[in-house]
């Protein structure tokens, strides 16, 4: 066997051009598979992140009728105590209490429909929070408000403006107050950009007469978004949560969740097509390279090389080519994906679009930029698939040649 390997290496070295061509074909196949893989991973993650990110969380708790009716008085009582117990759960990464109160807002006299969102501003600056990444200096004071970017543009609001709010208190009274615009906010959530007036939870509680109450507790699990059902099961055991409606993000937005699943299937189909195309390229290259050597192989046969040995030599060559090619492709592909992951890919600029546009869907702004990435396991299908294809494609003509009479083979 060592001599077989040696001969195989020597054969590969003898025709550098052919070897290089085969290596490149195999490497490109693996690179393409990895690049698509990376894009798919990045896209799925970006979508899941957009969806289960700041607005939705992995699970939500509400008064059982709140989602249907949105009545201001459909509240979670004693929200802080329940929230503390939820935060103490081991499966919970973060949890936030929120108030959503529709209101009229006016800088001067013309009112405009807004949603006053009361949040724990300091806490929601953390990962997964509505205000993730908000610098500390931008935290408004007790009477300050952050307004959505589109709302600010359309209503002509700028920092320092006084905004009159009129809504309905949880007790039915006229909730009205003045807040000062302390910042303009661009979030991934369309609703917040269009209608959001974000104030401190305590301010909202004060204005809308909701002492210690909230409309929503938004929970993000420590695990992946798809572990939400287990998270919900854990939440059901929390004291104070038993009378509430607890739903996973998939239950909260079934169409969105379905959309992700369908997109995943499309991705798989694209992946298969790329894989088949890559395999065909490799097969073609290897087939041609081996057929080309029929005379040479026939010569070896006529010199007394046994057919079995001949096949073993070609097999060894193919395995070496396959392994080196895939390794090279993995390096190239991983490098490409790493690079893309670092700088981000924006498919919306691939057509005739010059400018990137964020994709708004289901009320969420999906950042158009994707950050592709690879998991170690993603290398495997290409590694196995591409090298198996290259070996089979080389072996087949070798087997045919080995079965021929030496003279016949040499005549080509």
């Amino acid at each position, binding site marked *: 066997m060592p001599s077989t390997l040696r001969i195989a290496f020597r054969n590969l070295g003898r025709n550098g051009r052919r070897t290089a061509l085969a290596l490149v074909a195999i490497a490109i196949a693996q690179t393409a598979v990895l690049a698509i893989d990376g894009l798919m991973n990045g896209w799925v993650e970006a979508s899941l992140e957009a969806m289960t990110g700041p607005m939705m969380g992995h699970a939500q708790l509400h008064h059982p009728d709140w989602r249907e009716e949105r009545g201001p008085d459909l509240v979670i009582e004693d929200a802080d105590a329940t929230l503390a117990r939820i935060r103490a759960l081991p499966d919970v990464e973060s949890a936030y209490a929120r108030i959503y109160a529709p209101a009229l807002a006016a800088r001067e006299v013309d009112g405009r429909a807004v949603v006053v969102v009361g949040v724990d501003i300091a806490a929601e600056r953390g990962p997964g929070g509505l205000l993730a990444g908000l610098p500390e200096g931008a935290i408004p004071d007790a009477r300050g408000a952050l307004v959505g970017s589109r709302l600010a543009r359309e209503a002509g609001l700028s920092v320092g403006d006084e905004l009159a709010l009129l809504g*309905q208190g949880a*007790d039915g009274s006229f909730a009205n107050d003045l807040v000062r615009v302390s910042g303009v906010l661009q979030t991934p959530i369309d609703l917040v950009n269009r209608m959001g007036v974000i104030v401190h939870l305590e301010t909202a509680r004060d204005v809308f007469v909701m002492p210690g109450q909230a409309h929503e507790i938004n929970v993000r699990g420590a695990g992946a978004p798809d572990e939400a059902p287990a998270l919900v099961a854990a939440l059901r055991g929390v004291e104070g949560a038993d009378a509430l409606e607890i739903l996973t993000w998939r239950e909260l937005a079934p169409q969105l969740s379905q959309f992700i699943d369908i997109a995943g299937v499309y991705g798989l189909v694209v992946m298969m097509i790329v894989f088949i195309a890559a395999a065909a390229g490799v097969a073609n290259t290897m087939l041609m390279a081996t057929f080309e050597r029929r005379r040479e192989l026939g010569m070896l046969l006529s010199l007394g090389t046994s057919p079995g040995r001949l096949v073993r030599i070609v097999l060894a060559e193919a395995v070496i080519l396959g392994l080196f090619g895939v390794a090279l492709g993995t390096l190239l592909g991983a490098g490409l994906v790493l690079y893309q992951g670092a700088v981000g890919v924006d498919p919306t600029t691939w057509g005739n679009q010059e400018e990137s546009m964020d994709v708004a869907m289901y009320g969420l702004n999906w950042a158009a930029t994707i950050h592709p990435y690879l998991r170690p396991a993603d290398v495997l299908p290409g590694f196995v698939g591409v090298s198996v294809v290259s070996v089979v494609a080389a072996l087949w003509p070798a087997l045919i040649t080995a079965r021929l009479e030496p003279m016949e083979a040499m005549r080509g």
Partner: protein
Amino acid sequence: MERSIRAGGAALAVALLLTFAPTGSAQAPPDLDRVTRTLDDLFRSSASVGRIELTVVTPRGTRTMRMRMWSRGEDRALIVVEAPARDQGTATLRRDRNLWNYLPRISRTIRVPPSMMLSSWMGTDLTNDDLTQSSTFREDFTGQVVGRAEGGGWTIRYDANEGVVGLWRRIEYDVDDAAALPLRARYFDRRMRLARVMRFEDVRVMDGRRIPTRLVLEPQDREGHRTEMRYLEMDFDASVPESTFSLTELERPR
């Protein structure tokens, strides 16, 4: 097909019965024009001053407000909250299709934008749109006497005229036997779904007019919700100057 023929046959039979029903009895169908005028003019006046009590009932609680109101013609109204104390002085001004809310606590006036016309007015089951409506059955609807109402009286059907922009495609009124007072009204939306039912109760003579003094509004899509309007006092022939309905007057300290 067969079904629709049968239904058509039934309708024809009813129509024939109505046409040839013996006249002169107590059960004679009312005159449509007279009913329409009655309904249109029930609370109408060139200028009025009154006091009403609004009770908002939800499955979770009840809230009562007392308000004073001034009106002039069909498109001027000013409503000021007198009680509860927390909301005292909160006021709504209507001029034509515009609504302003004045909030004394923050001394600010906010105009209700067109996009909020279908939102609740002051937390009741009434919408801002209800306050700015000035359609009449005479002009905007086509009436038809349907027949005897369930539980007595007559049912009159009003279908919105082609081209009339409004929330209601059909409004059905049950009126009493004398066709002098409404008993119930059923409002059907653009998709012909029953959206709200209004009951007219507690008939009394107020400032010389015999009117139902309690109106109960039940939205059909929100179980357990209801808004009651009770007329506490009404002066249908008040003199109310046009200047009452100005932003200055709206913001006047009370």
